[in-house]
C-alpha cells in the first residue's frame, strides 16, 4: 500500500511503513525544510506512514524558491485545520 504526499501541488506516492523523514528524503526533498501535516496536525519526523493516512501535506518552511513552475504552487497557507488556541 502507498501513501500520497503533496508538496507545492505536486503529488508523490511512497510506501507505507516508512518514517516521514525517510519519505521526504526518498522524494528528494530536504527534511529540514519541510513540515508534514495530516488532518491539520503536524507529524514528527519519526512518524510511521500508514495507508489509512491517505494524504500527507508537505509544507515548505522556506517561502519561495520552488523548483516547480508557478502554476503548481499554492498561493496561500489554506487548509491548516482548526489549530490550537
Amino acid at each position, binding site marked *: 500500500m502507498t501513501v500520497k504526499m503533496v508538496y507545492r501541488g505536486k503529488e508523490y506516492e511512497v510506501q507505507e511503513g516508512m518514517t516521514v523523514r525517510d519519505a521526504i528524503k526518498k522524494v528528494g526533498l530536504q527534511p529540514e525544510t519541510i513540515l508534514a*501535516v495530516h488532518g491539520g496536525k*503536524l507529524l514528527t519526523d519519526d512518524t510511521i506512514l500508514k495507508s489509512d493516512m491517505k494524504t500527507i501535506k508537505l509544507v515548505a*518552511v522556506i*517561502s519561495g*524558491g*520552488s523548483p516547480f513552475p508557478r502554476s503548481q504552487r499554492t498561493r*496561500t497557507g*489554506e487548509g*491548516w485545520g482548526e489549530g490550537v488556541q
Partner: protein
Amino acid sequence: MKCRKCGATAAINMRQHKLALCEEHFLEWMPEQTQRFVEKYRMFAPEDKILVAVSGGKDSLSLWDILHRLGYRADGLYIGLGIDGGIGYSDESRRLSEKFAAERGLTLHVVEVEATYGATIPELAVISHRGRDKPCAVCGLNKRYIMNRAAHDGGYNVLATGHNLDDEAAVLMQNTLNWAGGYLVRQAPVLEANRPGLARKVKPLCRFYEREMAAYAIVCGIEYIYDECPHAVGSTTLYNKEILNQMEERRPGAKLQFYLSFLQAKEQGLFALQADDAELHACEKCGQPTSAPGPEGCSFCRLWDKVRAVKGAQLPLPARPTIEISDES
C-alpha cells in the same frame, strides 16, 4: 515521539535542542522563549510602544501574534509594494495582514507605495535602472525608509521585524564569504536608536529556526502567504539557506551554533575596529537621517527625484506618507 513535558504525541521535534513538544506545550514554549530573548538582548520593556513590520508571511504574523499574547503594546505596519508576479502577491499579502489584524482587534497601519509616492516598486526599479532585473535593492531602501519614518511619525520607540535564525544565518554567511566588516558589525538582534531620527530595531525571532516559525503559524491556524516575493526566487539568500540546511541535516544545531558563535565573537570585540561612526544629519528634503551630504538629499529622495524626472507631473510629491489605519482596537 512523545512530548517531553506531558508525554502526549509530539507535534514537533527540534533536533538542535533535543526537544520534542506537543501542540499545547509548543504554543507555550514559543512565547516563553521569545520573552527570554527579549530580556536577554534587552529589546524592549512592557511600557514600550512597538511597531511590527508585517508582510503577510508566517514570520511577521507569528511575531505579532506572540507579542500580542505576551501582552505587549504592538501595532502592525504593512507596506504595499505593488508586486504582482502573476499571483497578486502584494494584494494577497495585504488581505492576509488585514484579516489577521481584524480577527484579533489589532491596529494595522498601511502604506501603499504607489498611492503615496506614485510608482510601484517594480516600476521604480525599471525607471531608476537599479538592481538589473530585480527590484530588491530599491525595495529594501524603500522598506527601511518607510518603516523608520512610520515608527518616528507614529510615536513608536521600537520597530520589530520577523527575521528568524535562518534569515540571520543566511545573511551572516554571505557577509562572511565577502568579509563585509561593515555589515557584520551591524548585524545583531538589536540595532540601537543611537542617532537622532533612527528607530530602535529589534528581531525577537532571531533564535528560532524557520521550521519552528512555520510550525507555530500552522499550529495557531494563522493564514499566511505561502509564496515568498516572486522576485526572491533564485536569490542568494535562498541559496545560502539551502547550503546551511544541508549542514544542519548532517549536524543538528549547526545553524544555531554558527549564529550564536558570531554573536559571542562580536561581544568579545572581534569586530570592534569595524565600528560604524558615519555622521548622520537630517535630509534637507524629507528630514529623515542620512549620511549623504548636500541639497540633493538622502538616497530615498534622490531615487524618487529621478523617477519624478522620468514620469514628470504624474507623480505626487507628498510631504508625509499616507498612512491608513485599517482597524483601530
